[in-house]
């Protein structure tokens, strides 16, 4: 993509000059981002707009610039970004640049370079040899790290519409319990098949990320999810102590939080089952050993272990046990989740508020994301926290997983 930032100053609002310039950009086949608009407060005050123009070719970009310059558009001279060393470990310099989860470039000694792995609300660290720019959380910064400050020499690219004409093409975080689910689930399945096919053919290493909560087990989605994992459609799993514990409880006792999954009734002393399960796994060493020793025979955890799907289990305050794999330091858990993200091309966030919001906010905007929850507040919260690319699906997790599995070929 070829881009150029221009500025426009004067009485550009009432005179429709701004509208004319923007219309001209679009009519000629370019796109724009209004990066800054300052409107004068009094009638005689001037207004100012900074516009980032994008065009598919340099020729078209030049044509657009030629067309808009007579209307007052001034091509902004490009400047290098500014960096300041971090004053201490875990402290960013004043005026640090706060990132978005959109693709970002910085200008260093005259060249634009990509900032790796976009994520919202981080800082940008520059390394000079070899030259690289990465997004870093505040807490990981070390004294002396070069941190980007101010707003010069930075460009942020708006989300491009994906080439696929599916539900993600609309890129709208509209959450509704009213809209039909079927075609959304079919689109998700199609993407999962494509990613799996590319992996099988060896021409892609894209991953499908699944983040889920224990309601999947309670509500009866376990069997379908385990099948999806066994078939190789999931490549990273994020969850907490509970999903793993209740999944393995189901394997050992046929219950989930004490309810018999077959007959749907609580069984005597059933509330202890998940504690006994956790204790058993702790005694065996960890989940992997519990599966490999044959104690845990089936289910979500067993499928992940058998398929070699990396799991990040992040702890919460009142976790029972927890299971040995659970990372109880939340910053360490965040790091582990972040480390598992490169390559993720589709994210499914199902039946978990905490894991959905955490995962969603770790993801770049370019990753198609579906947030499924029976409670519309969850996808709404996710989009309110900035993950605007997430498609919200208000439905029961079990229905979602069963329908998704069927779309993928499950006969259950």
């Amino acid at each position, binding site marked *: 993509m070829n881009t150029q930032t221009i500025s426009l*100053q004067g009485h550009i609002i009432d005179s*429709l*000059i701004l509208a*004319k310039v923007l219309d001209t950009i679009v009519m000629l086949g370019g796109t724009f981002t209004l990066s800054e608009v300052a409107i004068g407060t009094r009638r*005689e005050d001037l207004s100012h707009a900074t516009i980032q123009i994008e065009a598919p070719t340099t020729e078209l970009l030049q044509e657009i610039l030629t067309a808009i310059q007579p209307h*007052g558009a001034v091509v902004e001279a490009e400047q290098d970004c500014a960096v300041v060393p971090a004053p201490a470990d875990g402290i960013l310099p004043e005026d640090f640049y706060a990132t978005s989860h959109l693709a970002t470039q910085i200008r260093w000694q005259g060249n634009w370079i990509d900032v790796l792995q976009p994520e919202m609300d981080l800082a940008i660290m520059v390394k000079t040899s070899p030259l690289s720019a990465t997004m870093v959380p505040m807490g990981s910064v070390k004294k002396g790290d070069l941190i980007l400050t101010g707003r010069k020499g930075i460009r942020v690219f708006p989300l491009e519409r994906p080439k696929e004409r599916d539900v993600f093409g609309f890129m709208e975080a509209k959450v509704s319990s009213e809209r039909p689910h079927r075609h959304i689930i079919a689109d998700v399945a199609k993407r999962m098949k494509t990613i799996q096919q590319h992996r099988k053919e060896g021409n892609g290493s894209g991953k499908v990320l699944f983040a889920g909560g224990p309601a999947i087990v309670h509500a009866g989605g376990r069997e379908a999810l385990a099948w999806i994992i066994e078939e190789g459609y999931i490549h990273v799993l994020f969850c907490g102590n509970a999903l793993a514990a209740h999944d393995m409880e189901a394997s050992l006792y046929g219950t989930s939080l004490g309810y018999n999954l077959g007959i749907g009734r609580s069984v005597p002393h059933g509330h202890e089952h998940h504690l006994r399960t956790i204790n058993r796994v702790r005694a065996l060493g960890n989940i992997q050993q519990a599966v490999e020793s044959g104690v845990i025979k089936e289910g979500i955890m067993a499928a992940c272990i058998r398929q070699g799907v990396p799991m990040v289990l992040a702890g919460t305050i009142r976790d029972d046990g927890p299971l040995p794999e659970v990372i109880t330091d939340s910053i360490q858990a965040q790091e582990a989740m972040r480390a598992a993200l490169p390559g993720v091309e589709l994210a499914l966030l199902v039946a978990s508020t905490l894991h959905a919001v955490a995962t969603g906010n770790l993801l770049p905007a370019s990753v198609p994301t579906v947030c499924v929850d029976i409670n519309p507040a969850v996808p709404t919260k996710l989009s309110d926290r900035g993950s605007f690319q997430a498609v919200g699906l208000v439905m029961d997790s079990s229905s979602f997983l069963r329908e998704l599995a069927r779309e993928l070929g499950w006969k259950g």
Partner: protein
Amino acid sequence: MSRLLMCPPDFYGIEYEINPWMRVSNQSNGDRARTQWQALTQVLEKEIGVKLEFMEPVPGLPDLVFTANAGVLHDGKAVPSRFRHPERQREEGHFIDWFAKKGYEVISLDAEWDFEGAGDLLGFPEFWFGGYRQRSDIQAYERLSTVFQKEILPVELVDQRFYHLDTCLCPLSGGELLYFPHAFDVYAQTVIAAHVEQTKLFAVPSSEAERFACNAVCVDRQVILPTGCPETMEWLAQHGYTPRSVDLDEFLKAGGSAKCLTLALD
């Protein structure tokens, strides 16, 4: 009392072609031009009571007669024009000298941008319109707006025959506006319509726009316009103005009329 600057047409003639009206082959008649110009001064001075000031004509500067293009004067400040065509750039020094001699604070624009004075910048007390694309650059209005502390709405001129804003737009003292819509792009047409009440807006018919009906001088309720504009005169009369027509055809040969021949000094 209104004051206007004029320049006798002693050296007026069609010596070059810098707009579609000018044809060297269609030369003006010197005597007739002088008679028409004098008739205009008569109407202004005797009938309307305007105080006229005169510039010294200069040989070799045929268009010095069009004083509207000298610059813009307001609040004791003068911003002289920077002409687009070299033929008229030679006028600039004479206008600057006159402004300085009369005690105006002369403020020069950045040499990078063209601006052709009151020919392209006119409006109401609350805001001004600035014509651009033909003779003036839009960038000039940013600076002019700061100098005069005025809102200036740039409007794009798209018809070469109406190369200055004062050839296709004329604000009147009561807030009414005469204009020729087709001289403007659609954005400018929208802006003009949004800034003037519909009942106060008169779209001059094309036959009268070509006679330069919009190149009129308005002093209080008196409007002086070229001959051959009956519909515009009727509209003016219906809206409480006293229209007076003056034959200025010799100046139309150079693409100018009543307004182009005067510069408001207030």
